[in-house]
């Protein structure tokens, strides 16, 4: 059987052409050459897979001449007709990572040739392409070359041989959202207790259900003059005018509502209700002030305790709603709050 073929993509730095000053180096095909990190791959592939060509391209050139670079590189890869395409590893070099992800995605889609790359988890190319392209998690500098090649080479071989790729935790690529079913040796209760014991003993353990990463925002300074402050109400408790005029979904909301409460002193059973499908709605439907305290804030406005209650409130159902959606809703209405000089927000959740 003929040896399987690979084409390797690297940037100007790893081709030892130069650093930043050579980043505008146009795409170049070197047939029969194994360059830089390619030597480590060559060693790992042994007799099974051969790097038949190396493509070198400057990072700035690729990203600034995206269409031309993509077209040129695709033509080069097509000409070589490899069994697998390898890019990088790019470690934490942002433009290089984006280039690796972009070209791997392109090669897979346009030429139907499987591809693998590698980069540091925080490389912007990782977030952009890890769902589409097998992307090995590497260290953040070229000091991690050995580890990176040790994970990328077996994947490249499997892809070239059209073998099945295992789960991300074993193969070392970044989770791409594709679930693999398999039988565990031990049942769930035992695994859970073992994890708990390890945690209590301060020993390392690996969760089977990692929590999403939540970013943090520093607190904004407090308001100084409450008696003249404009306060806005926001809720994830789904309070809406009776009849839910904008049809906000009872769960996994795709939208939020903006409702004028000018002249409204009290939310009543006849005028407001909740659209939220994740809690018993009886109490909120009876008296929506239990979720959105308009009545109390109106009293305080009259007493001069606060300057005024902002004339709109913003609402959605927090039930199963994607973090990305909630973020987008609040980004949008916060602009209005800022434009209207709202001093502070009370956000209520159920």
């Amino acid at each position: 059987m003929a040896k399987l073929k690979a084409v390797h993509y690297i940037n100007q730095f790893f081709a030892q052409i130069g650093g930043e000053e050579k980043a505008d180096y146009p795409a170049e095909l070197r047939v029969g050459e194994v360059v830089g990190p390619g030597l480590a791959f060559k060693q790992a592939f042994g007799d099974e897979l051969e790097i038949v060509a190396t493509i070198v391209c400057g990072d700035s050139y690729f990203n600034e001449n995206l269409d031309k670079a993509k077209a040129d590189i695709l033509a080069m890869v097509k000409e070589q007709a490899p069994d697998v395409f390898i890019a990088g590893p790019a470690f934490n070099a942002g433009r290089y990572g984006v280039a690796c992800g972009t070209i791997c995605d392109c090669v897979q889609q346009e030429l139907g040739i499987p591809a693998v790359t590698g980069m540091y988890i925080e490389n912007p190319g990782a977030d952009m392409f890890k769902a589409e392209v097998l992307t090995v998690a590497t260290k953040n500098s070229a000091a991690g070359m050995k580890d990176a090649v040790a994970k990328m080479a077996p994947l490249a071989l499997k892809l070239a041989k059209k073998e099945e790729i295992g789960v991300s935790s074993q193969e070392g690529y970044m989770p791409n959202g594709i679930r693999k079913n398999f039988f565990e040796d031990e049942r769930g209760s035992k695994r859970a207790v073992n994890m708990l014991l390890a945690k209590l003993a301060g020993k390392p353990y690996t969760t089977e259900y990692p929590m999403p990463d939540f970013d943090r925002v520093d607190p904004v300074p407090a308001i100084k003059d409450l008696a003249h402050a404009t306060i806005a109400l926001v809720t994830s408790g789904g309070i809406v005018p009776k009849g839910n005029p904008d049809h906000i979904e009872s769960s996994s909301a795709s939208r939020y509502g903006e409702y004028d409460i000018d002249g409204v002193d009290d939310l009543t059973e006849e005028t407001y209700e909740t659209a939220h499908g994740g809690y018993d709605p009886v109490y909120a439907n009876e008296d929506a002030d239990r979720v959105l305290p308009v009545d109390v804030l109106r009293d305080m406005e009259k007493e001069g305790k606060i300057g005024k209650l902002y004339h709109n409130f913003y609402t959605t159902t927090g039930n199963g709603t994607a973090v990305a959606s909630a973020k987008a809703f609040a980004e949008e209405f916060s602009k209005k709050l800022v434009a209207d000089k709202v001093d502070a927000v009370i956000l209520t959740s159920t």
Partner: protein
Amino acid sequence: MVKEIERAGIPVVHVCTVTPISMTVGANRIVPAIAIPYPLGNPSLDKVEEKELRRGIVEKALEALTTEVDGQTIFE
């Protein structure tokens, strides 16, 4: 939503019952509420008492908004 409001530069207080969720999400000013279906109420009280209860929570929320915080703070 709390974080995006704060990111926009507006101080925000999160009134919620399950404060650990609020901590995880990243609210900086947190005021505990009564119960999930009625965070600012209690149907077992009469209307006057219930409104007083709600007023107390809102006053606590306003106190949080007028208090400088260093990091995530629960105003009990």
